[in-house]
């Protein structure tokens, strides 16, 4: 390979890189416009880490006698995923998104009502000694 050829290739590479960089910048700008509404990841992650710690201490304080109701109620509250399903169903979007959203709303609905009811049923049975 002659120096001239090398230089030629380098030049073409540089040209491509410049084009790529321009594309990337454009893409980033587009992203920035679209995503200004989403909270920054680090902020969400901070909340997540705190919640894991809160969960750790709260769960260890649960009496072993109530571990079954604990399973049922955590199941019920994790169905708060319904808020995502509701936004997917109710905000403007395509039919596919709306259909998937509706299915998720229904599934979460089973869990919310069923989960809280069965927890209430279980807890209602725990009685103290009648004196």
């Amino acid at each position, binding site marked *: 390979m002659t120096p001239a050829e090398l230089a030629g290739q380098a030049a073409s590479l540089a040209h491509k890189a410049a084009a790529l960089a321009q594309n990337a910048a454009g893409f980033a700008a587009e992203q920035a416009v679209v995503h200004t509404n*989403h909270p920054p990841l680090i902020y969400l992650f901070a909340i997540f880490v705190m919640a894991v710690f*809160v969960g750790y201490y709260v769960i260890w304080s649960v009496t072993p006698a109530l*571990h079954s109701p604990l399973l049922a109620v955590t199941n019920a509250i994790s169905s708060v995923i319904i808020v995502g399903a509701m936004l997917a169903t*109710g905000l403007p979007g395509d039919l596919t998104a*709306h259909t998937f959203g509706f299915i998720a709303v229904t599934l979460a609905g089973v869990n919310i009502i069923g989960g809280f009811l069965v927890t209430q049923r*279980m807890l209602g049975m725990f*009685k103290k000694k009648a004196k």
Partner: protein
Amino acid sequence: MNSTTDPGITVAYLVSAVLFILALRGLSHPETARRGNLLGIAGMAIAILATLDHPGMLLGGAAVIILGIVIGGAVGAIVARRVNMTALPQLVAAFHSLVGLAAVFVAASALNAPQSFGIGTPGHLRLESLIEMSVGLAIGSITFTGAVIAFAKLQALMSGSPIIFRGQHKLNLGIGILILALVVMFVISGGSQTLFWVIAALSLAIGVLLIIPIGGADMPVVISMLNSYSGWAAAGIGFTIGNVALIVTGALVGSSGAILSYIMCKGMNRSIINVLLGGFGTDSGAAALVGASGDKSVKSGSAEDAAFIMSNASKVIVVPGYGMAVAQAQHAVREMAELLKEEGVEVKYAIHPVAGRMPGHMNVLLAEAQVPYDEVFELETINNEFSTTDVVYVIGANDVTNPAAKTNPASPIYGMPILEVDKAKTVLFVKRSMASGYAGVDNELFFRDNTMMLFGDAKKMTEEIVQALNK
């Protein structure tokens, strides 16, 4: 357009999250638990109402949402009211599967309409949202099929015995690596539909493969683990759509399930890896009858003998196990205890952490039979009382009382914490046969002089004792 732009909605989600924490906090005592549950319901209502009030919500969309909640809620209400308390473990497994599936569908719809959540446009999603979405999708799928298999095992739709084949773990590892590689490709692609569903399919397969090698009696760990997974899946979706309530709840549920898994594993003195690799136990104790015990003699007695011994005791401890649940003997046990108490006998119940098919299973069954919760004690609290106890009535439990766990390092259950029933003056064992327990090990307690075997169905035997006590 996004929920987080409106401070009102964000505050509502934060309030929900706090109410959920309070709901779990209430479970520290049966007295406060019911109020806690109501707080949880309030938290959920706030989250749903706030979302319905979202400024971008279409009127037709809101109607469809309410329709979905009504349909789903009706199904949930019927199931929750009708379910038999013995069938709770499979109900919880079924509910877990729904959370997993809901996570998959929310992820799918976020992929199709990312603008609704402010995470990009179709085919051009933000990098971190794609990663978060993959996490929610993969864990959600695993939770779904894993919980379906757990349900099938608990409902006896499939055998509870472990399903093991050659190269199983290598296969799982291979699929796991493949999923990781596909996630990377998915993220680079900006949100390819095809890759999304391939990841879903492989994760669904992993869910099945992870649970089939785990035996029926390890179900307390499986259920706790699936509980944890459903939490992490919810958190993954929470990150994707930037929702605080979902992230906090996911973290709470995730840690809850993880802690329960830890407690269950500790109750069996096994590592979580050991449980996950599976293959432990046979589920049907009868098959694992140990021949070596054939020549040793056991003392067996009748219901009348048992009634006589117990009514002359001053303190009786009942040790229930999964066998009591299977035979639905909890009501008869409570009746027996009532009669004994009338004769002036002190009656308590001792619960091993892994008794039953889900954490706290025995406590719920005893509560259902109207046994007061202040007569029911955990292993650590009651273990030093056995030495001052006249009679222990073991019903449907075996391995959790086996002294070999303390004395025989060669035993598969060595190191497992046990209820030290061998320290009591007399041990009554209600059993259908001499078959060994789930772990397939012989229980030397059966052959001791102060042990009396009561052969028969747990419920029938207890009812006969009740009759004898009534005479």
